[in-house]
């Protein structure tokens, strides 16, 4: 895709979009209000910034589900990327008190894309408010671990602080942390402790869908809160 002639040459606009996607993916808490000024100077308006933030957060969801479930590619690739390097460490998030303040007035909100916002709300309800196959308390624990790992203060208010106890909850918390911070380490082996703790295939997918959804929601939330700081 990247070699497609229709892609823009990496001019200031392309570099700015790629740089923004990079920060959303690796360290959304690093964004600042000044970045909007810098992006506008590169020809990217606020609606486009919101689109990049939402799109990159959503593609992070798809990456996580793809690696957690272990899908194969649908087509041949001419230039295969290098295999994942498990030793790559995720960038550390700041201490809690230095995470973006969720209560500041925001220049960008998902509600500025009303159709997307309504569909995200429906997705949230579908993922978080079912009683099965994973119990609600376990699903809330998974979401809390992801929100904590992503520096999502507002998310943690909704889920409560993660406090895993017992074999299953410890395994849920460890897996959720991996999904949030190092999805390149996901694989069959990562699921083994959850299987050993008694989860069946449907419950395992529930864990994957919940942790990956919360990674999307927390990344989006933290990036938009950070752009207000």
């Amino acid at each position: 895709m990247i070699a497609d002639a229709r892609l823009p040459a990496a001019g200031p606009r392309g570099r700015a979009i790629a740089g923004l996607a990079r920060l959303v993916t690796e360290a959304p808490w690093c964004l600042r209000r000044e970045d909007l000024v810098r992006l506008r100077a590169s020809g990217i308006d606020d609606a486009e910034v919101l689109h990049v933030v939402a799109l990159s957060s959503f593609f992070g969801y798809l990456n996580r589900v793809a690696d957690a479930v272990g899908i194969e590619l649908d087509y041949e690739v001419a230039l295969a990327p290098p295999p994942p390097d498990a030793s790559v460490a995720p960038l550390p998030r700041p201490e809690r008190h230095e995470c973006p303040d969720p209560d500041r007035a925001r220049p960008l909100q998902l509600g500025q894309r009303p159709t997307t916002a309504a569909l995200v709300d429906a997705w949230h309800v579908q993922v978080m408010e079912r009683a099965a196959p994973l119990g609600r308390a376990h699903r809330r624990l998974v979401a809390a671990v992801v929100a904590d790992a992503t520096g999502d203060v507002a998310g943690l208010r909704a889920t409560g602080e993660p406090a895993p106890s017992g074999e299953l909850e410890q395994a849920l918390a460890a897996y959720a942390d991996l999904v949030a911070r190092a999805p390149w380490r996901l694989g069959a082996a990562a699921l083994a402790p959850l299987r050993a703790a008694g989860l069946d295939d449907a419950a395992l997918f529930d864990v994957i869908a919940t942790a990956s959804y919360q990674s999307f929601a927390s990344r989006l939330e933290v990036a938009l809160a950070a752009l207000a700081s």
Partner: protein
Amino acid sequence: MAHLPVTGRREATGALRETYELLGKRALPPVYVPAHGDAPGIVRAHSLDPAVMRCAFQVSGSLNGQGPLEWPDRELVNAVTSRLNQCLY
């Protein structure tokens, strides 16, 4: 081999079959239509939970079916995100 069971469009029944039919109505650029004739792998990866499949790909549709970013810019965002997540997808 996937780590979890995956049911394709041809074997799907009930709610899963309906969800594949609903999502199959989306207008996809030809480059995204797999030659194997089944739904894309990332859609099939959700086959254990058709309701989540529907919700997630409706969000995808709203982010990829509306601007303001044009297709090349969207591909750039997705490619950068995948690369940093070290995901082949």
